């Protein structure tokens, strides 16, 4: 173990050294990547600016994390106790997982005031992972211990209090570990999309036009450090409390409670699950009391897109934006997944490489996407290649981590059997490793669907001036409220739809192949 950590440090030091040399020599896009010391010097020069921005981001993400994870644990307990509720809330949960937060930022700013939009988006970022972790943790409790409590006459609450909640602590902490960086990303996205003076997102937005790579990198690194610190706090807490830290797992699946219900009830619950997010939407708009002109209910959006005088024009603009956004989303996602797949398979052949690469992958995963995009703009410019690379970079790493961790679970003996009959490494990969990776490929796809759309929309919003992201940004400027809500609704619905398609294909394929879904 010690020698492996030593190895990691050596790799990190080497990486920093290469960075410094490349930066000092202005090798990347004429100085778009400054040396690490140049960035640190600039950070020191800007030190007066940072406290207020960091304070605002920390406040929003901390409050959001607290609220989001409280709701997440509460909802997790409810879902674990009453599986019917999990079915009923499926639509809401999938939407919470799959929605691109950037699309929500403008509508939250329209309906809430002050820090509330940031806190809400941060809370949303934390909710899903914590909720899933809670349900999984509660349902993983040892069946024999539960039987023991039951045998002594204990009821459902006794079991929950004495066995399940305590047993779920490691899982919940693991959820918080992923939820914390998510909350930071949510807060920064809201700062970005919502205006306001303070916050790292606002700082980044203000510095964007000035062509100062060292400052942008500084902000990006600080944002990454905050997100990483959130991850670390819960990792340390988990190892203190529970004595174990498991490898990062990014859960992209809704927990399955396995309860069977009749067809009629299932249809009813399915319909409820579809309607529930719209009900929440309607209730939210009504509860905020914002006038109809600004805050659109689902009926308002239908009216805007299909019934009003400007409907034809609105549809036209929306479809044109979709035609720009969707192809590059799929292309980027496919490329990101493809790279991840090839590299994960290759890392089976060269296991040392994966060890060196994993820390880098984990750091970039905690790097907030909004901080990454301006940096890529510096390197790649504002063309479509930027969108593509943003999408690849946000899909590649989570997909790679999921695949690599999945492949490490393939039983050794399954791989050794062909080898013992004299099979080549390539044959072994084809026969065992590649087919065995299929469940993890699906899990990685589920994970990357929403990230890909988010990546494309951020790139469009910030840099390329195309597609849905740009339409959203433009509509803010034109105070075209109907379009803001329409883009938000359409992007969320599309995300959910793609996610559902992947889940359906996954279930069908894996069932046919006699394989189980990877978590």
């Amino acid at each position: 173990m010690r020698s492996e950590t030593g190895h990691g440090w050596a790799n990190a030091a080497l990486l920093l050294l290469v960075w410094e040399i490349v930066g000092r020599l202005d090798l990347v896009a004429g100085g778009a990547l400054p040396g690490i010391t140049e960035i640190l010097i600039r950070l020191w020069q800007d030190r007066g600016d940072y406290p207020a921005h960091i304070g605002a981001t920390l406040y929003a993400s901390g409050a959001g994390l607290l609220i989001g994870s409280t709701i997440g644990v509460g909802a997790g307990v409810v879902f674990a106790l009453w599986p019917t509720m999990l079915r009923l809330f499926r639509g809401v949960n999938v939407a919470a997982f799959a929605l691109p937060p950037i699309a929500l930022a403008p509508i939250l700013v329209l309906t809430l005031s002050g820090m509330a939009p940031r806190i809400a988006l941060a809370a949303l970022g934390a909710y899903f992972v914590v909720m899933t972790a809670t349900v999984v943790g509660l349902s993983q409790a040892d069946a024999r211990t539960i039987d023991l409590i039951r045998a002594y006459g204990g009821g459902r609450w006794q079991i929950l209090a004495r066995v399940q909640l305590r047993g779920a602590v490691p899982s919940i902490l693991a959820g918080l570990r992923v939820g914390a960086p998510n909350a930071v990303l949510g807060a920064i996205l809201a700062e970005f999309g919502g205006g306001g003076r303070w916050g790292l997102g606002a700082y980044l937005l203000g510095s964007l036009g000035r062509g100062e790579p060292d400052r942008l990198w500084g902000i990006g690194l600080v944002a990454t450090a905050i997100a990483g610190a959130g991850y670390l706090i819960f990792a340390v807490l988990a190892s203190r409390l529970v004595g174990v830290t498991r490898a990062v797992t990014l859960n992209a699946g809704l927990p399955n409670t396995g309860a069977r219900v009749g067809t009629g009830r299932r249809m009813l619950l399915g319909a409820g699950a579809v309607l529930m997010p719209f009900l929440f939407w309607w209730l939210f708009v009504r509860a905020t009391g914002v006038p109809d002109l600004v805050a659109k209910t689902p009926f308002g959006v239908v009216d805007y897109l299909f019934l009003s005088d400007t409907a034809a024009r609105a549809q036209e603009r929306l479809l044109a934006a979709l035609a720009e956004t969707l192809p590059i989303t799929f292309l980027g996602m496919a490329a990101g997944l493809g790279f991840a797949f090839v590299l994960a398979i290759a890392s089976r052949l060269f296991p040392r490489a994966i060890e060196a690469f994993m820390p880098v992958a984990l750091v970039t995963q905690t790097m907030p996407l909004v901080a990454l995009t301006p940096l890529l703009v510096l390197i790649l410019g504002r063309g479509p290649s930027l969108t593509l690379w943003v999408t690849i970079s946000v899909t590649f790493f989570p997909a790679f981590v999921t695949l690599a961790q999945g492949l490490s679970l393939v039983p050794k003996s399954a791989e050794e059997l062909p080898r013992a009959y004299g099979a080549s490494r390539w044959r072994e990969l084809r026969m065992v490793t590649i087919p065995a990776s299929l469940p993890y490929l699906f899990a990685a796809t589920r994970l990357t669907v929403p990230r890909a759309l988010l990546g494309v929309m951020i790139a469009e919003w910030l840099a390329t001036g195309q597609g849905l992201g740009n339409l959203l940004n433009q509509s803010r400027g034109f105070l075209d409220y109907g379009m803001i809500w329409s883009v938000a609704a359409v992007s969320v619905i599309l995300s959910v739809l793609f996610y559902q398609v992947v889940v359906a294909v996954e279930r069908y394929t894996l069932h046919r192949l006699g394989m189980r879904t990877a978590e």
Partner: protein
Amino acid sequence: MRAPDGVSVSGVSKTFAGRGKVVEALHDVSLSCPAGSFTALIGPSGCGKSTLLRIALGLERADAGAVRIAGDAPMDAARAGITGIAFQDAALLPWRSVRRNIAVPLEVLGRPTSRLRADIDAMIALVGLAGFEDALPGELSGGMRQRVAIARALVTRPRVLFMDEPFGALDQILRRQMNVELQRIWAETGATALLVTHGIDEAVFLADRVAVMQARPGRLVEIVDVPFARPRQKSLFTAPEFHRICDEIAGLLHAF
């Protein structure tokens, strides 16, 4: 010295280094299994019996000494289709049907599976799984999966059969049934068999000779002959002479 279809292990040593510790997994182990014999390898965890098997399969390299299978180096014997292998966990590929799992060694060896389909089905019948040809591993019980693993080990008509605790995951009752069946199947093939096991009664019931190993360093301490006539009946499990040999081996295992 060289047995044409047997296994000869001569002076094999193997040391693992890791985490600042050096473990001598095997220390100068020599063992000769004549053609058609059934040898059981027994010993406590960490005595190197699985390492020895892995060396014999060519999955691990010996530091000193050599294993010869029918006169060949392990990998050459494997590529020639002389060896058959059954691992501790059945190691079935969950996405392949019973028939296609059994076909794995044939595919690796480049033999035409289509022409050998009758062979595969005969093997499935031999292990008592007729009717389950197209079932997926997930639909089978633990005992059935082990039978598939045995059928897969036999499908190449190996002259040497290696088994690493093939029934380790099964309960005692099922295990004894499988032992009786394995004896019948082995007798039909006439292969040289080497069985690695934790179970004393399993070793004594199946083997002509039981090689007893000890740990730290892993070494061979004794070879116990088992004189019972074949085919051995289930009633042997309760015979006094059977228990005498079991006790003798138990004594060897606890003696050090």
